[in-house]
């Protein structure tokens, strides 16, 4: 993984851990964020808003797909692809 990809993943993971989940819970990069157990729909929206603003990727309605948001790892990969193609 490149340094840049690593940095994206760390930023997103930190946001999820610090802002979106209870203090006594933990999240790994491959944990399912959309199972309904970790995050509610409000938290997922906050995550989308954060990612959009933090990385200025111009999130579109069509981007709200399970395959883009399911885990921190796939979300980071999605952000990296956006940065590459949309800049």
């Amino acid at each position, binding site marked *: 993984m490149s340094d840049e990809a690593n940095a994206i993943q760390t930023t997103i993971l930190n946001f999820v851990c610090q802002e979106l989940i209870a203090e006594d819970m933990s999240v790994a990069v491959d944990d399912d964020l*959309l199972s309904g157990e970790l*995050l*509610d*729909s*409000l938290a997922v929206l*906050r995550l989308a808003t954060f990612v959009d603003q933090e990385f200025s990727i111009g999130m579109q*309605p069509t981007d709200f*797909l*399970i395959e883009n*948001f399911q885990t921190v790892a796939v979300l980071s990969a999605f952000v990296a692809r956006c940065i590459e193609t949309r800049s």
Partner: protein
Amino acid sequence: MAIALHQLAIEAAGQRPEGEAVRCGNEALRWAELVLNSNGMAHALNGFGLKRGDRVAVFLTKSLRVPVAFYGVFAAGGALVPIDPKTPIDQAVRILRRTGARFLVSEVSRTSVVTSLLAACPEIKYVLGLNCDMPAGVNSAPWSTVDELASYSGPDLRIGSLDNSYIMHTSGSTGEPKLICHTHSSAIAFAEWSAREYGLTCDDRLSNHSSHHTCFATFDFYAAARAAAATVLLPPAAMMMPASLAELLERECITVWYSVPTALVQLLLQGNLAERNLNALRWVLFAGEVFPDKHLRALCAILDHARFSQVYGSTEVNVCTYYHLPANGAFPNPLPIGQPCAGDRALVVNETLDRVSCSEAGELLISGATVMTGYWGDPERNGRAFVSRSEPGGFEARWFRTGDQVKQDDDGNLIFAGRTDYQVKVRGFRVELEEIESALLSINSVREAVALAMNGEDGDAQLCAVIVCDPLVEITERDLRSNLQHTLPPYAIPSELHLASSLPRTPTGKIDRKALTLRYEQKTEEWNQSA
């Protein structure tokens, strides 16, 4: 009419044994399998000693196990207590204790929560679905028992149409959850009426959007069973990702949709619907909150081959009125809640419970087959919720007070005119919170709006509104205010307008007003959650 809810599944299995009954992701149960497994569940519960009328709490995430457990409880003669898997533990404990449930159906993934529940509820003596160590005096059996006991014949029992079928709980976000008790008869009254009214057949595929512990499930599961149709459980992930949800609707060839308007608005705004082939969709039903007119018209335009129907009613009455939108889009705003369904009767009364004249607004009372038995173990609340009225001929009818204000339009359709408790007085003026919301929503860039009345000084209400705007449009509080000055009288313009990025939701997906009010009162959280 069928006697009991599991009879609907048995008849569906007789009619279409190999037909799909329930689908969830890559897995599905055919009708014959569903009956086989639910009988296994019933035998397991009866083996534990369950007797007719005993309450069985079902605490499961959305999966194929849900219908197996539901029909299994009915076939065992039990009364189902479905518990929202997201219910905070203290709340779940209260529900368990108040219903006096001795039986609990759950699954391994919920072991830690169940362990806490058992510690707090010594009344629970039997747990099905877990294979961990149990406290002393608690019997348990794993889910595999259900498969081992699977059988085409259910327990040999007598079950009547007036036996309790389920006790549903409200979210009770600011207090005690209400426990709403239905009989088999009151659930079937709605299931049979709706299967007929929406012309359900075995070719239909119904979506199950809301959580299975809500009254939306009555249609999604039991009306489908009446017609031997399939129910497609929508996974939580799809609910959070509207574009994926739209994809799923196309892939699963959903023919009948039923949800709160909010879910449809999300599909409209983020689901990329124009790109999808949703020609299979023939009915779109919605209930639970006001559908913002501009979003409804936009959705009707995109899904122009589907019919739309607004259904109305709280869990206490299943559904009690309905209104089919005319196919040509010529529907009024506000949208009527329409006419009573399933043989129910409607009566509009004033504060002294006297019938009002046709043009006047008043509280809606409902009497008929879809109405609940009452709130479980709560005589005081039942005393407030029901009124008896004598009728000509020496008859006496029991009416449920909906707490909703309605009036009649020229066509005799009922129009929702606000919750009785959403009417507030501001400096002596009567204000409807819905009017403020509708004024806000008529502003182009406003996606969602909630008006709240807070207790101000001197007992006067103070109005505030929380607004979610289109993120691509720059709009300020001042812009909103100048807009509102054109549409609302000065006293109805909220003194505080808060811009937020999203709103809290109830388990059915409605905007959670109580949570918003609480957040405002406590001022513990930032309005703009993403800030």
